[in-house]
């Protein structure tokens, strides 16, 4: 049986599958939130979703537009203050995975959400760091999900808002009390992991129908491929159904139709 699905759906389902039941996940808004909620509604009903607005263990019925939609609080086990969220829950070491999106990522998994160009004379001013700089260092590990393009995947980010492994891949070496950092990046084309030695991103799995050239052409440096290059498993019917219903509910809610 072959299912119809988009590359965006492939990305979300793959990202969702990275989460395991029982993990505590600090969720970024947008793609990470979509993937995390899909995981919760499919294979990982006991995944614990935490948003920086203070909502602990939340189970929204529709995807929040903002990091602090009412839905998040109403379906949360409890809601704490934002200082408590960052101090006790994130910095306190209770987050197994930080799930982040980004505007730019480089070969050492550094993230830029600050600006394009020069800091003091920016070409494009982006929103900024938000929770990411400390999520990336205080969570036990980090998953990253974003669309693959030469604009987003650059050799060196214009600005390191959020540490992957630094300008030379050694940014976490010798730092006490720091998480493992990014352990995978999931795009609409493939799954990448940092090389255990150099920390440079390596493609470990291609999504169905995607070629090495596709990835190569969408990446701003000469990206390497794992020797044992895998093929990402396709979404199944249940995942697609749940994802589509979730997105439909969400769209209805945010256009005010509900």
């Amino acid at each position, binding site marked *: 049986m072959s299912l119809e699905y988009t590359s965006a759906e492939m990305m979300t389902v793959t990202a969702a599958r990275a989460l395991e039941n029982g993990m505590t996940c600090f969720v970024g808004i947008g793609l990470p939130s979509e993937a995390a909620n899909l995981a919760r509604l499919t294979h990982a009903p006991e995944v614990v979703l935490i948003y920086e607005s203070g909502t602990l263990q939340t189970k929204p019925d529709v995807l929040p537009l903002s990091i602090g939609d009412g839905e998040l609080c109403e379906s949360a086990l409890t809601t704490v*203050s934002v200082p408590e969220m960052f101090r006790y829950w994130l910095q306190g070491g209770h987050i197994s995975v930080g799930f982040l999106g980004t505007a730019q990522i480089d070969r050492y998994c550094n993230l830029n959400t600050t600006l394009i160009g020069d800091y003091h004379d920016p070409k494009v001013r982006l929103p900024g760091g938000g929770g990411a700089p400390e999520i990336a260092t205080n969570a036990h590990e980090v998953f990253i999900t974003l669309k693959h393009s030469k604009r987003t995947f650059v050799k060196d980010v214009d600005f*390191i808002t959020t540490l992957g492994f630094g300008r030379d891949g050694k940014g976490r070496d010798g730092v006490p009390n720091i998480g493992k950092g990014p352990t995978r990046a999931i795009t609409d084309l493939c799954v990448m992991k940092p090389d255990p030695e150099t920390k440079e991103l390596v493609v470990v799995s291609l999504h169905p129908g995607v070629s090495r050239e596709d990835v190569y052409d969408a990446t701003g440096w000469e990206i390497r491929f794992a020797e044992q290059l895998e093929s990402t498993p396709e979404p199944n019917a249940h995942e697609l159904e749940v994802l589509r219903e979730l997105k439909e509910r969400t769209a209805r809610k945010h256009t005010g139709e509900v």
Partner: protein
Amino acid sequence: MAEFLSLHDAVARYVEDGATVAMEGFTHLIPFAAGHEVIRQRKRDLTLIRMTPDLVYDQLIGAGCVKKLIFSWGGNPGVGSLHRLRDAVEKGWPHKIEIHEHSHAAMACAFEAGAAGLPLAVLRGYVGSELPNVNDQIKFIECPFTGERLAAVPSVRPDVSIVHAQKADRKGNVLVEGIIGVQKEAVLAAKYSIVTVEEIVDDLMTLPDYHPNACVIPGWAISAIAVAEKGSYPSYAHGYYPRDNRFYKEWDTIARDREVFTQWLEENVYNAGGQS
């Protein structure tokens, strides 16, 4: 002891040109009505502090009230850019603004430290980030017990903090419920504070669902209370009205263009009366 004032009078009394002002509310309970009153009163040269500038600061920046912005995430949540913020930073319209940029963790800790009467906040933060290169307000200290390098930022101590909440009672005690953000911290860290509320009730303690550990700010820790019904719209008030996510999306179009924005401001702020 909290004084009950009109929003107009509260802003007129406590928000001076050149003041450092924090308007807080993390996505929830954003004090839009108060922000609009600040615009109407044409306050100038403000240093604005807020974790997520959101639409309210986009409007204040576009209206020309702002000299400096201290923040940690300056986007339209789930939608994209804050175009007025970008226009000021990238092109200097209506004039250049200075920015001091932090991470959420640092800002949250800085509010906490401000409320706690400390001059600095200490956190495990900014490791490997280049933000310390461009913000001289981020320093590092060494733990005298472990030798660990820790980030330090100055605490937030605004001249005035403005927050919105669900209820005040006749003694000026304020109840905040739901996503409580850094609102209590903002009020306690500031020299003066204005709290706008959806409604005044007789006595919080006799509410049927009153909880012994509710997030309550006593009246004696607040300077002024002003009633502002739907005072956080298009943000929301838990238990009163939902977030208007549609307007947040529409804002992208309004704010993208200087003229459309100016017209919106004219119609919805300058000519929208306000209370006196």
